[in-house]
């Protein structure tokens, strides 16, 4: 397999290169080829080097507070060089609000102090591999709603919107019954606990009935879970399990998303049994 090539660059005048050098060494140890630009590189120079060296990923480092000027300038220079397909990641002393801005203009990811180098290496591997485990989810497949009684809630949707439950089944692994209401492109999943020890029962007790989770459809769930874990995202399910309708699913911990419970599901991957963990 071709080795992943990474350009580590220091844009602007910042001379703090400890982080850049440590990352460069760690990526080399992870089997990648790393080109380090040295200090004081202009955005144009960085892009030229990236194109010439035919790198898979560009990593930018800045600790001087100039990231809001320099990182966008690199993105702009990439566009001009018709090289926007090279993903860019960044690192340094970068406040949260700037991270949101930089990621909105196309920087793939910003890593802040304290990030293990392994997480950076794993992320680059995904980026460069272009593998399915890093692609955005295909769609929201369903929205989960916790209810005390499926029948009561289903009758509301039927009366108000003429929507009817297409499919009801019991999912023993979660101690729930679930009804799926087809709303065109997205299902509503009404979930009712079958036992007091069900996580949904706990949810109802704590928060009452209502929105419970959203489910993203992805491919290759198993790999996706591994990648998320390597990137430091906390998972509730560390291996796929049965989610009903023959699909396999896994929940992420809501603390990662700021309070929303996210389910990942892969269509038709469940053979009816809980999969063994690795």
């Amino acid at each position: 397999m071709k080795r992943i090539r990474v350009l580590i660059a220091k844009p602007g005048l910042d001379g703090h290169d400890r982080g850049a050098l440590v990352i460069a060494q760690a990526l080399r140890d992870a089997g990648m080829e790393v080109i380090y630009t040295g200090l004081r590189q202009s955005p144009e120079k960085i892009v030229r080097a990236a194109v010439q060296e035919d790198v898979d990923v560009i990593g930018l480092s800045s600790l001087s507070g100039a990231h809001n000027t320099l990182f966008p300038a690199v993105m702009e220079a990439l566009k001009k060089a018709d090289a926007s397909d090279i993903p860019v990641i960044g690192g340094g002393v970068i406040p949260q609000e700037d991270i949101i801005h930089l990621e909105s203009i196309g920087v793939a990811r910003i890593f802040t102090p304290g990030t293990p180098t392994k997480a950076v290496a794993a992320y680059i591997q995904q980026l460069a591999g272009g593998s399915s485990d890093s692609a955005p989810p295909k769609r929201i497949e369903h929205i989960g709603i916790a209810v005390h009684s499926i029948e009561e809630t289903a009758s509301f949707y039927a009366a108000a919107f003429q929507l009817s439950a297409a499919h009801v089944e019991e999912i023993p692994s979660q101690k729930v019954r679930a009804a799926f209401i087809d709303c065109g492109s997205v299902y509503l999943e009404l979930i009712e606990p079958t036992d007091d020890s069900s996580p949904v029962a706990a949810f109802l007790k704590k928060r009452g009935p209502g929105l419970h989770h959203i489910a993203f459809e992805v491919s290759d769930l198993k790999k996706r879970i591994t990648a998320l874990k390597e990137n430091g995202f906390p998972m509730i399910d560390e291996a796929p399990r049965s989610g009903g309708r023959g699909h396999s699913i896994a929940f992420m911990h809501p603390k990662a998303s700021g309070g929303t419970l996210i389910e990942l599901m892969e269509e038709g991957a469940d053979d009816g049994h809980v999969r063994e963990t690795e």
Partner: protein
Amino acid sequence: MEDFRSAYETWQKKVKAQIEKRPERRDSFQSTSGFEMERLYVPDRIDSAYIAKQGFPGDFPYTRGIRPTMYRGRLWTMRQYAGFGSAEETNRRFKYLLDEGQTGLSAAFDLPTQIGYDSDDAMAEGEVGKVGVAIDSLEDMEILFDDISLHEVSTSMTINAPAAVLLAMYTAVAEKQGVPPEKIRGTIQNDILKEYAARGTYIYPPAPSMRLITDIFSYCRQEAPKFNTISISGYHIREAGATAVQELAFTLSNAKAYVKAAVESGLPVDEFAPQLAFFFNGHNHFFEEAAKFRAARRMWASMMKDEFHAEDPKSMQLRFHTQVAGSTLTAQQPENNIIRVSLQALAAVLGGTQSLHTNAKDEALSLPTETSARTALRTQQIIAHESGAADTVDPLGGSYYVEALTDKLEEEALRYMDRIEEMGGAVRAVEERYVQREIQRAAYDTQKKQESGQEIVVGVNQFRTEEEPQPDLLKVDETFVAEQKARLKRLRETRDQKAVDSCLETLRETCLSGANVMYPIKEAVKVYATVGEICGVMRDIFGEYNG
């Protein structure tokens, strides 16, 4: 025993003289139990090794401190590094810190200033006013020190490649306040070797850079004898990842290279060495750090005496500033940083620092806010006034542990220095990237230890908590950049351009002739030539260093 008696008596005489000159802060220093704190604690059974290795404070080899009474006479200078945005804004922060009880100033310049570019230079894009204050001309410097008496305050300036330019501006501002250069007190960092090795704000190649430094030594010896001409810095070497031993070894090797260069340029050692100062890092291992400062003093004293045959005790006394380690601050659970800073600062005080900067808790996230900067200052005020650490001289002296660590650090650092000597000295070692490689190796080693959990970083690889939202962070007002550029444009339109051209021409000739560049630089800043223009002339002639 005879040695000890006479040494003890000499010390007591010195104490008496010192107290007559400057009484101690209190008539008596007492613990909470009412015990009288003695000025100095000494072993009750003396061997000759005590005199040779530790001695009395204020006596060679200065292991126990460079003054006979240390902090009982005068506390260290509390000097918080500050600067961002415009000269106006930084002037306000300076005054705020002085009002809060800070006792010296420390100016942070932005990267364009540090690398010799004006604010309107394309290379400065995005960096103006970010890590420090933007200074383009004497006009900005006048605003920076507006209403601050340069007769009273001492100022440290973190400036290296353009140190000559900023020193010239500082003396010019002082003169306008009616303070002659011989009265100004302060420090310019002016340590280019560690810029190549660890910090990155170099401009010119080593040879002309070393010449600029010796020109400054020579100028200050004549004109500004109270000003520290250099602050030989281990701080940034340590921040870049070095160990305590490496910090000692590389800093003292650099010091040796500067002394050698100055002696070779014809300066007698005792005429410039008293103006050399040092700057160390206050890092995590509490006892090793305290021992490091003690070892540094002993190493410098021996080197100056034995290798350079200094005779003036001032040439052998290592005076140093400490900043606690920015690289140990964590973005996670920033409150924890206050505790880290307290411990690191206490080690520096127990190690006998002359001045101290304590970091603010939010500096892993951005520059400090006014509130966090105040807490940082309060941290050292608490050590000074509440902890009792300043009530006796060298409280750790005689500890089996600390003395053994002091010896070990010295021994290992000397081994490193020998290797650098064999390579042909510090300049050569930096040119061959030996120093850089050694630092990088140590940095990577630390990273691996932290990732494997062998080294615990509280709140990062252990004892993590779900993070609260980030605290209020300082935001530098971006609109000032346009104003800064406009001010510069106005200056260029209104100043006496002929005078500027002529001064820059004189500077060019002086660079080529080998005479002291400080004098033409001083003339150039007085007619408002800019940092970029002056450094530009030298860039043309000296060339640029490519890291």
